[in-house]
C-alpha cells in the first residue's frame, strides 16, 4: 500500500507536465462554470415561487381573503410590509381568480391615491393612480384570466365598457390601495372610503 502511494506521488510531477492535464482541467472548469450558470438561473427564477415570506403571504395576516383589509399605519419598527411609504394609508386584498373574475371598486378622496395589482411572486400586474383611473376619481376594475374573459365576452354584463378590464395569467395575488395621508382632517374620509372599498367575485 505504501509502495503504491509512493508510486503515485512520484508520478504526479510528470502528470502535471502533461499538456493534456491542463486542457482537461480547463475543460472541467468550463463544464463547472456552465453547470453553475444553469444552477444560478434556476435559483434566481425559482425564488419568487418558493419564498415563505413573500408580500402575498404576509398580507394574509391582516384579515380574510376577498375583502380589503386596512394595513396598520407604517411606523418605524412596525412596518406591515417592507418598503411601504409611511406617509400613505394602505389597504390590501388577496384574491384567487380560480373562484371567478374579481371586481374591485373604491372611491377614495383626493389629493392622491393609487392602486396596484401584484401577483403572488410580487410582480406588478397593473397599476394606476387617481388621475389615470379615468372615472372621475373612482376605481372600477375587473380582473380575470384569459378564459374568463372569453366567456364574459359572449355574454357581457351591464356596464362592462365602463370598467377597466385587466387580463392576467396569475391566479393568485393581491391588490393594494394607497392613499396620501397628508391632512389629519381628511384621514377620517380615507378610512371610511377604504372600509367601503370592495374586492369580490363578479
Amino acid at each position, binding site marked *: 500500500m505504501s509502495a503504491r502511494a509512493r508510486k503515485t506521488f512520484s508520478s504526479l510531477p510528470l502528470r502535471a507536465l502533461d499538456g*493534456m492535464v491542463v486542457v482537461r482541467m480547463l475543460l472541467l472548469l468550463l463544464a463547472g462554470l456552465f453547470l453553475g450558470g444553469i*444552477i444560478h438561473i434556476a435559483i434566481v427564477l425559482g425564488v419568487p415561487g418558493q419564498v415563505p415570506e*413573500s408580500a402575498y403571504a404576509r398580507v394574509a395576516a391582516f384579515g380574510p381573503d376577498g375583502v380589503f383589509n386596512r394595513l396598520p399605519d*407604517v411606523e*418605524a419598527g412596525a412596518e406591515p410590509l417592507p418598503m411601504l411609504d409611511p406617509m400613505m394609508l394602505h389597504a390590501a386584498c388577496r384574491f384567487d381568480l380560480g373562484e371567478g373574475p374579481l371586481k374591485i371598486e373604491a372611491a377614495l378622496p383626493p389629493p392622491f391615491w393609487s392602486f396596484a395589482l401584484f401577483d403572488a411572486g*410580487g410582480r406588478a400586474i397593473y397599476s394606476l*393612480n387617481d388621475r389615470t383611473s379615468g372615472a372621475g376619481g373612482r376605481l372600477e376594475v375587473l380582473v380575470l384570466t384569459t378564459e374568463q374573459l372569453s366567456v364574459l365576452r359572449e355574454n357581457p354584463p351591464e356596464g362592462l365598457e365602463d370598467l377597466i378590464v385587466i387580463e392576467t395569467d396569475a391566479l393568485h395575488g393581491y391588490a393594494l390601495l394607497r392613499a396620501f395621508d397628508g391632512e389629519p382632517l381628511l384621514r377620517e374620509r380615507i378610512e371610511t372610503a377604504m372600509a367601503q372599498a370592495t374586492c369580490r367575485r363578479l
Partner: protein
Amino acid sequence: MTLALSHDPETDGLRPDRVPSILRRRRRALALDLAIVIAIAMSVGFSSAYLAVERAPAFGALRLGAWEARPRQGTRDADPYSTATHARTGRVPLAGGEGLMFLAETDSDGNTLSPRCDYEISGQAAPARLWTLVALDREMRLVADGSPRSGVDSRHLLRRANGEFVITAAPRARPGNWLPTSGTARGLVLALRLYDTPLTTGTGVANVPMPEIRRGLCR
C-alpha cells in the same frame, strides 16, 4: 440475434480506433472529474445566485445625481433579479402607474451617507404631482422612531419664492423643513418617492432636476 451483433461484417477485422488520451481514463478518474465539476458548479451557482438576489444588479437603473431609481421594477418587464429580491424580502415595489422611488446612498460628493451626520437636501425635485422623502437604514427599514412625523412631503413644504426648498435631515428637530433621522441607525439611505410622475415612462429624463445632498455637521 446476439450472434449477428457480435459478427458484424462491416467492422469485423478492423482494429478499434486509437482512443484519444482525454477519453482514455480509468473510471475512478471520471468520478473525480465529475466531483470537481459538481463542486465548481455548486459553489459558483449558489454563491452567485445568493449575491445577485441579495443585492440585485442595477439593470435599467436611472441615475440622477446621487439618486437612483429602477423604473422597470414596478412593471411587467421587471428583470428576474429584482423580482427575486422583492419576493425574498417581501418588499412592495412602487408600480409604474403609481410612481417611482429614488434611493440615495451617497451625498452629492459621492460619500456614503452616515447616520451620525446632518444633511442638507436642497434644490428642486423631479416633476411629480406629489412626492415624499423618508430616511431608511441600510436594510431599507424606517429609522425615524420616536418622532411624530416620519418624513417630508411636497404638499407641506416651506419653499423659497423660486420654488426651491431646503430640507435638513437630522436626528434632532430643526426649524424649517426637517427630515427626522436616527443617530443610532445602521446606515442611512434616503428614499424619495415621486407619485404620478412622467419619469416612470422613461421619457424626458434629461435635464430633470433632483435635489442635491450636502453633508453638514457630524457627531
